């Protein structure tokens, strides 16, 4: 019994275990599916791409409008009443179309007024001119008189000077004559002559005595020479004669000396006396000369002064008169008035109609019917014949990619795109962060005032490693891309995202160029995902 019980218990245990085992496997199967589903939900689905060779193009797009290149201002004489204005702003006009019409009555009134004024000016000018002539005549007369005075003065004073000069010269001559003539005046002075003769006699005596002495000497010599052993005796014999000769010489010398002295003292006396006489004469002559000289100088000075006065008068007479341009001014006024008159007359001929000078588009009308025309422009119009230009504003960032001369594509709705070069790029004065791009539009292509879109593409160099911008991520200041890596895991071949740091060389809004070497061409890169993907995460490829 117990065994049976045991057996049945065991059997039920076995059956229960079998049931439980089956249940367990079933549960495990279920959980397998569940966990896989949960896992699939959490795994990000990614889109991938590869490296490609490309250029980084920068496209700058801007909308702008066509504005006229040239504007014409149509104006007319100010102050005329406007009769009618048939045009309005924005209206295209052809050359010859009437822009506005002037009131005919007002115009003729204005013309009449202008004519009167002209007449007035003419008369005023004539008066002015006649006044000027008179003044001129008087001036000439004064000039003439001054010149005559000058000439007269010159002649008169010249003569005075001459006379004075002559007197002076004479006085000088007398003086000089006196000084010079004194030297060969020595009248026959017998005393002097006598003394001189005495001197001469004494001189001769001296010479004689000396000669005798010399002869005596010679004689002695000769005697000695003839008889040398008797020299002492000879000399003794001649001794007395020698002494005698010598005595005679000495006497003669003394006498001569006396005579010379007497002559000298006499001469001195005579000179002293002469000196006195001469002194007095000289002084009087000199005084006369000085006087004459002074008179001459006075005459000179007088002449100089007179001439100076006269020439000053001449100068004054010749002095330029103050500039009087009133005549000129009056003439100019007259001319202006004439012109104004002509203008008004011309307007009258046109029946007061102001026409458009060329084809264009009216931008601004400054005249109103009934009002007077102003000083400024009456009608401003865009001149279509010069063509227009396209203007668009771009930001500072976009300005970097454009430069003068680049070709842009200009497109208007309904028209074909035009390829045109950029004319200028200038900073907007009001907004320093904005730049204005100008492109000349050839005449006849795009209408002025319309809107167009410009597109400019700047290509950079070709980069071998370019990826879409969505593939680049940034963390901690380092750029990186996520590459797909196949790893073998328990769940089979799985794809994980591998983080690869890269350096960006260049980028635009959609592409980025990377420095080569970091990635290979066959590496799949994650370009987009439905969830955030970090390095090391499992990913699933999108079903294409």
């Amino acid at each position, binding site marked *: 019994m117990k065994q049976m019980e045991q057996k049945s218990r*065991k*059997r039920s*245990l*076995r059956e*229960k*275990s*079998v049931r*439980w*085992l089956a249940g*367990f*496997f079933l549960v*495990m199967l279920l*959980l*397998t599916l*569940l*966990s*896989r589903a*949960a*896992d699939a939900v959490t795994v990000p689905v990614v889109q991938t791409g590869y490296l490609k060779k490309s250029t980084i193009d920068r496209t700058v797009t801007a909308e702008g409008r066509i504005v006229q290149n040239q504007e014409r201002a149509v104006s007319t004489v100010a102050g005329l009443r406007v009769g009618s204005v048939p045009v309005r702003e924005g209206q295209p006009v052809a050359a010859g179309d009437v822009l506005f019409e002037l009131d005919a009555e007002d115009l003729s009134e204005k013309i009449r007024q202008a004519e009167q004024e002209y007449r007035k000016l003419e008369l005023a000018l004539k008066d002015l001119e006649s006044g000027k002539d008179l003044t001129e005549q008087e001036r000439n007369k004064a000039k003439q008189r001054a010149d005559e005075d000058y000439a007269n003065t010159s002649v008169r004073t010249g003569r005075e000077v001459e006379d004075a000069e002559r007197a002076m010269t004479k006085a000088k001559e007398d003086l000089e004559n006196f000084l010079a003539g004194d030297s060969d005046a020595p009248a026959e002075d017998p005393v002097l002559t006598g003394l001189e003769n005495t001197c001469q006699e004494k001189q001769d005596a001296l010479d004689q005595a000396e000669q005798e002495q010399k002869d005596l000497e010679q004689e002695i010599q000769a005697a000695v020479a003839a008889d040398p052993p008797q020299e002492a005796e000879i000399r003794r014999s001649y001794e007395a004669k020698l002494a005698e000769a010598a005595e005679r010489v000495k006497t003669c010398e003394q006498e001569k000396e006396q005579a010379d002295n007497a002559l000298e003292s006499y001469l001195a006396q005579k000179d002293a006396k002469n000196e006195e006489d001469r002194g007095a004469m000289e002084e009087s002559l000199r005084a006369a000369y000085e006087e004459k000289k002074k008179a001459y100088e006075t005459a000179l000075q007088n002449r100089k002064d007179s001439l100076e006065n006269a020439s000053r008068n001449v100068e004054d007479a010749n002095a330029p008169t103050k500039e009087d341009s009133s005549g000129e001014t009056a003439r100019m006024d007259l001319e202006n008035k004439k012109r104004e008159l002509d203008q008004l007359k011309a307007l009258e001929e046109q029946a007061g109609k102001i026409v458009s000078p060329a084809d264009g588009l009216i931008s601004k009308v400054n005249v109103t019917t009934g009002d007077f025309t102003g000083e400024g422009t009456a009608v401003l119009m865009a001149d279509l014949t010069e063509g227009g230009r396209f203007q668009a504003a771009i930001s500072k960032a976009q300005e970097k990619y454009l430069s003068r001369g680049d070709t842009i594509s200009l497109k208007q709705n309904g028209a074909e795109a035009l390829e045109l070069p950029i004319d200028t790029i200038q900073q907007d004065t009001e907004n320093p962060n904005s730049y204005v791009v100008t492109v000349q539009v050839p005449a006849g292509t795009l209408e002025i005032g319309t809107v167009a879109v410009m597109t400019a593409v700047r290509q950079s160099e070709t980069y071998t490693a370019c990826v879409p911008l969505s593939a680049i991520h940034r963390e901690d200041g380092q750029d990186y891309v996520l590459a797909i890596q196949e790893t*073998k*895991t*328990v*769940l*089979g*071949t799985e794809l994980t995202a591998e983080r690869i740091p890269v350096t960006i060389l260049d980028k635009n809004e959609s592409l980025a160029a990377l420095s080569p070497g970091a990635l290979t061409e066959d590496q799949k890169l994650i370009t987009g995902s439905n969830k955030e993907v970090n390095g090391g995460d499992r990913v699933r490829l999108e079903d294409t």
Partner: protein
Amino acid sequence: MGKKVLIAGALTALGFVICYPVIYLISGSFMGNGELGEGLSPILKNGGGFVAWHVIPLFPTLKNFVELLLDSPEFFVMFWNSVKITAGVLAGQLILGAPAAWGFAKYRFPGRKLLFGLYVLLMILPFQVMMLSQYLVLDELHLLNTHLGIILPAVFSTFPVFIMVRFFDGVPDQILESAKIDGAGAFQIFWSIGLPLGAGGIISALVLSFLEYWNLVEQPLTFLKDPALWPLSLYLPNIDLNDAGIAFTSSVVTLIPAVLVFFCGQEYLEQGIVASAVKE
């Protein structure tokens, strides 16, 4: 009465000691990471002191189970790998081992004793001894990194044969003879008489095999490179503090089929032990 209580008490205590690892495992699987960290830090983090454990967790949580069973598809991949390997092995052993055992038990042929002795020898040899030669053979056969590379050597394992031989020995020869007289062929005899009568042995052998191959570690580690082919026993080769909770939980889940299978085959195992004891 007192004796019974004493014996019961002693046996309970002994049972508890033997069962303690399992209780430890189950309680740990319900613990959160914090509590586990505290408890295991002396071992895994070189903390001071001894490991302290609460049998009933202070803060029980199902977080680990949820994480394992719902958030880890890898676990299930490995689970089904284990199932595949084990099922394959059992099927193979059934198909090949049973007839072999029957042959050893019921047929007398020359070299039988020698062959059987060889079988016993092979049974004794540990895997590590045969590992290198097995690797080379599998490489030649291009069976490395496949499940067959594990299943096939296991199918030809000698241990189940050995056990089944003992059981088949218990089938009385007279029945066979009477069947032969009735005109049954050899295969028919085996199929109709041997298998049913030796069912106990077969099942017990299979149960033991299951337990062995459910927990197989060395062969998969050596021969399977592809992580997608790994069985459950390789789920957490390295346990660190972060994964302690998962480790406990996965161990518990791995344990469950083994326990259930054992319960299924418990009867036959007992039978087998009895049968081997009783010799006819």
